[in-house]
């Protein structure tokens, strides 16, 4: 069970874009506040370009923030750490390594024994249901299977926090639903904190306990919602529930309003 609370405190991220003449400061994020309880499942939801992925990368320490502070377990983060693991939208597996080799990769800096690394890696490969494929290379796997490897790789370092950047965005609808159920199973099994970026309202509601809705330019959180369903969740009962429909409607309204206002700008 993870114990690290995530506190996002007045976070801003701005950068200079353009050359000489039309140089301007872009506020990718401004005044973002969010607290995520240990072991929680929170979705960052919003349209493309609203800064949700930027915030996730800041959480990992892949890009530095320009304002505010992000604390994990009370300590301000200064860069990538082994308490957090990142799952990429486009999988980012190494094509020259097998499934086993890919999952072993992040362990190579910390675990010196090869046998020990492989034991750990195999445990997580089994967890994502790919034991029969550990010798396969990424190009021999489907997109869904590749992302399972991506998840196993992230779990292998035994992080407190999983940062997932639209992990199922590149998958077809059926695979996507399957992966959502899988992810919830793994989350309940491991007790990690999950921060999940998505632009799908349905996905956010089905998966998370809490949803932070983003609006764009500057990227900030415009509303937070609690999802009124317990776990384990069943797809059909959740999606058929009146509260699902209601919440979906409410969030959609918020996103639409935001889009309209940005159109009229």
């Amino acid at each position, binding site marked *: 069970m993870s114990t690290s609370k995530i506190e996002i405190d007045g976070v801003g991220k701005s950068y200079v874009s353009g050359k000489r003449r039309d140089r301007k400061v872009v506020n990718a994020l401004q005044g973002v506040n969010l607290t995520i309880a240990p072991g929680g499942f929170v979705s960052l939801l919003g349209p493309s370009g609203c800064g949700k992925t930027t915030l996730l990368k800041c959480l*990992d320490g*892949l890009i530095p923030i320009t304002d505010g502070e992000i604390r994990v377990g009370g300590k301000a983060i200064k860069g*990538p*750490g*082994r308490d957090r*693991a*990142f799952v*990429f939208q486009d999988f*980012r597996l*190494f*094509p*020259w*390594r097998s499934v086993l080799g890919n999952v072993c*990769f*992040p362990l*190579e*800096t910390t675990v010196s024994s090869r046998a020990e690394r492989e034991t750990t890696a195999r445990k997580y490969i089994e967890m994502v249901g790919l034991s029969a494929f550990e010798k396969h*290379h*990424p*190009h021999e796997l489907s997109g869904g299977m590749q992302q399972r490897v991506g998840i196993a790789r992230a779990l292998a*370092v035994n992080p407190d926090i999983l940062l997932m950047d639209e992990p199922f965005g590149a998958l077809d609808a059926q695979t996507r639903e399957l992966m959502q159920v899988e992810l919830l199973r793994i989350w309940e099994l491991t007790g990690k904190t999950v921060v999940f970026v998505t632009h799908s309202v349905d996905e956010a509601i089905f998966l998370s306990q809490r949803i932070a809705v983003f609006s764009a330019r500057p990227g900030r959180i415009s509303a937070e919602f609690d999802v009124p369903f317990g776990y384990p969740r069943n797809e059909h009962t959740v999606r058929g529930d009146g509260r699902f429909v209601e919440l979906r409607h409410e969030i959609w309204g918020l996103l639409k309003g935001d889009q309209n206002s940005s159109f009229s700008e």
Partner: protein
Amino acid sequence: MVRDWLVRIATFCALLLVWQLVAQQMSAAILPTPQRTVNALIALIERGELQTAWGQSAVQVAVAMVLSALLGVGLGVLFGWYRKLDQLFSPLFGSLFLMPRVALIPLIALWFGLQDVAKVMLIMAFSFFEIFFTVRNGVKSVESEYVDVARAYCVPQGRTLRTVVMPAIRPYIITGLRLGLVYALVGVVLAGFFLEANGIGGMIYDLGSNFRTAELMAALFSVMVVGLAVNLGLRQLETRLTPWQVSR
């Protein structure tokens, strides 16, 4: 597939026929018939001349390629990885690359003479840049994609270079070597023209100056075959070593 090959063979036969018809109207010193050319090729091989010439050229190309590969891959990785270095020196390399390298021959002759050392230098002038630029661009392009993964998992820089960048640029290294070798062939032929006249370049030059046109055509044919073989062989290696890569 079969149809493609039929068309290719038909085209080849048609070309042979045209060659035959045109050659019949001309002096053998200008254009020998296909039959004469084949006979000349057989004679060159029987006398061992073609093998000797290619043997000399092969040694020169091999030495130059080993040096170009070491330098090209080494510097390519260094320049791709350290952006500052690239910013400082790339204009120099770029302008050298754009300069017609044939123009370097007099300087190479002044500095290194006319023998093998000079020839190796000339061949390197042709092959090094291909390898260097392909590898450097390779490092730059794998950087964002795979290096981010290493960063996200707290892998130190040196280790990232060794375990992520080096395997990731394998296809670029092989492509660079293939291009480098193709250009090395240009270099080795020119070396035989302008420096000491040995190897395949020297042979071509001598045959041409003595109006031994049938043998000249045969020698040119051997250059074509070697070029094709080099290209094909390294493409095979490319798909073997990097099965995930769609061959460029």
